[in-house]
């Protein structure tokens, strides 16, 4: 059976589990022939899924729910990431030491579906994001951490496993920085989950295939957690751009392992509820306007974990 997986971002240790499962033959053992398509800043995985370019994709719950509201009937079938790796990283010298210092500062944010947790947080803090002196100025930050290094922004969005370390690699020490983890701020949302089209799930054979896929993938993830360095090397082998460095991927794997720890692939309903609450609570422009229904299912994980 052939399965195509669309990733949310470029090939990196963030997706180590899938590459490991492919490389270690876990998929093959299940009788699956898996193709992994890397994503990138210009890939909207949902579109690929709907266009028939993939059977299953990795996406974040906020953007998945937003897509559902736009009429894309996608369903979460598994949640390998237990915790959120998002945080805001600030330069100490810019005068930020706590959320109360944000007022009047310029903050870099990822858009394209990743902005919701941030916007919710700001509305929780009561800070308008329109650039007024009472609030914060928001920049749509690009792919890298330059805005912080160039001091174009006081804080930028980073992932614990990636951009943060790029800042460190650039020569700043952790002492120069102040970080705000979304987990700690109570605005964490569920990140990398696996999603498929709802109507496909009506076919028991597809559910069966997905169960095999999830089982093999989770095996990959657990293998990666136990052998982070080897997993990083496998990711490196699969990077066609030749841009990744070994040290960075090994470190990323270490951090990612912290986020997948504690998940067997099953979506934790409480986490889900919390994410939904966060998203619906977002100030004037909430991401989703009504309680989503049927946005997730345990059908696949139940079968996979039998």
């Amino acid at each position, binding site marked *: 059976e052939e399965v195509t997986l669309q*990733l949310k971002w*470029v*090939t990196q240790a963030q997706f180590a589990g899938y590459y490991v499962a492919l490389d270690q033959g876990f998929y093959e053992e299940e009788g699956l022939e898996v193709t992994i*398509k*890397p*994503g*990138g*800043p*210009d*890939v*909207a995985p949902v*579109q*690929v899924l709907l*266009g*028939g*370019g993939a059977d299953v994709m990795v996406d974040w719950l906020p953007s998945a729910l937003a897509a559902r509201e736009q009429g894309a009937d996608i369903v979460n079938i598994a949640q390998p990431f237990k915790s959120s790796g998002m945080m805001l990283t600030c330069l100490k*010298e810019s005068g930020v030491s706590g959320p109360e210092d944000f007022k009047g500062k310029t903050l870099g944010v990822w858009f394209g579906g990743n902005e919701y947790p941030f916007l919710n947080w700001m509305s929780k803090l009561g800070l308008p994001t329109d650039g007024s002196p009472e609030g914060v100025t928001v920049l749509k930050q*690009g*792919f*890298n*951490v*330059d805005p912080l*290094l*160039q001091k174009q922004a006081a804080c930028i969005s980073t992932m614990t496993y990636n951009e943060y370390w*790029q800042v460190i*690699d*650039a*020569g*700043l*020490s952790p002492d*120069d920085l102040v970080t705000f983890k979304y987990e700690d701020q109570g605005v964490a949302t569920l990140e990398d989950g696996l999603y498929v089209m709802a109507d496909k799930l009506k076919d028991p054979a597809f559910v069966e295939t997905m169960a095999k896929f999830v089982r093999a993938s989770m095996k990959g993830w657990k293998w990666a957690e136990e052998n982070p360095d080897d997993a990083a090397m496998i990711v490196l082998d699969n*990077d*066609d*751009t*030749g*841009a*990744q*460095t070994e040290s*960075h991927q090994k470190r990323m794997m270490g951090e990612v392992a912290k986020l997948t720890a504690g998940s067997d692939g099953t979506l934790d309903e409480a986490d889900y509820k919390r994410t939904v609450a966060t998203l619906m609570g977002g100030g004037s422009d909430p991401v989703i306007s009504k309680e989503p229904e049927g946005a997730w299912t345990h059908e696949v994980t139940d079968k996979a974990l039998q």
Partner: protein
Amino acid sequence: MRSILPVLTVVAVIVALWYGAAAAMNAQWVRDQAARAGTEVSLAQILPRTMSQERPVLPAPHQVAKGLWEGVAGQKITSKRSLVYHGWITLSATLLGFGIGTGLGILLAIGIIHNRAMDQSVMPWAIASQTIPILAIAPMIIVVLNSIGVSGLLPKAVISAYLSFFPVVVGMVKGLRSPDAMQLDLLSTYNASRAQAFWKLRLPASMPYLFASLKVGIAASLVGAIVGELPTGAVAGLGARLLSGSYYGQTIQIWSALFAAAIVAAALVGIVGAIQTRVLRRMGMAR
């Protein structure tokens, strides 16, 4: 070659300016770092440090040269870290796209000058098509093509063709209309068919315009191929190198890829120029 000396002079001037700019732009970081470490740096200390940063604002020429050299000669050309490998991937899409785009552009231009309905209806929409931000619809093109089973080289070539056909249309429409009244009247007295007028008058008369367009078109093709690489997951090609370099803030990698792309572009434009010189000379038009 007579042009070696002038080129070298200009390059030398640029390199000198570049070093100056690199020193100026990278100095801030050195000073910041020193301040964070609580030390003082003298000017003499700053200078060398601006030339060897790992993530400079502007890498020094020798850093880029080194990056290029390692990318081109430092690897097996089949290696994923080889610029030759990535360059070839981009080049093949560029050439295919340029072929499609130029062909389409010339055909459209021919249609536009011969058919009023086309002139009046296609031209405005050809213009409109070019104002659509390609990066925005590239993913959709890729998705759509993907869903009908087209993937690999072709989607990239389609985007590259999309960018290159327009300069060709604009230039060729003007060129094909450039013969003066008397030249057209002459054919008219022969009752030459439109096809004959095209081959014997309009096409030769359009040559200077065509080549100007082709130069712009082939550079646009390359940009298109690079843009097309981004939404395909940027797995390989100079575009992927640019993007991943940018994503990881590896300035030197960006600049190396950028220069590789520019070298390819300059070479392509140069080839078109060489063909132009030969064609015009054969046509007795190079005086």
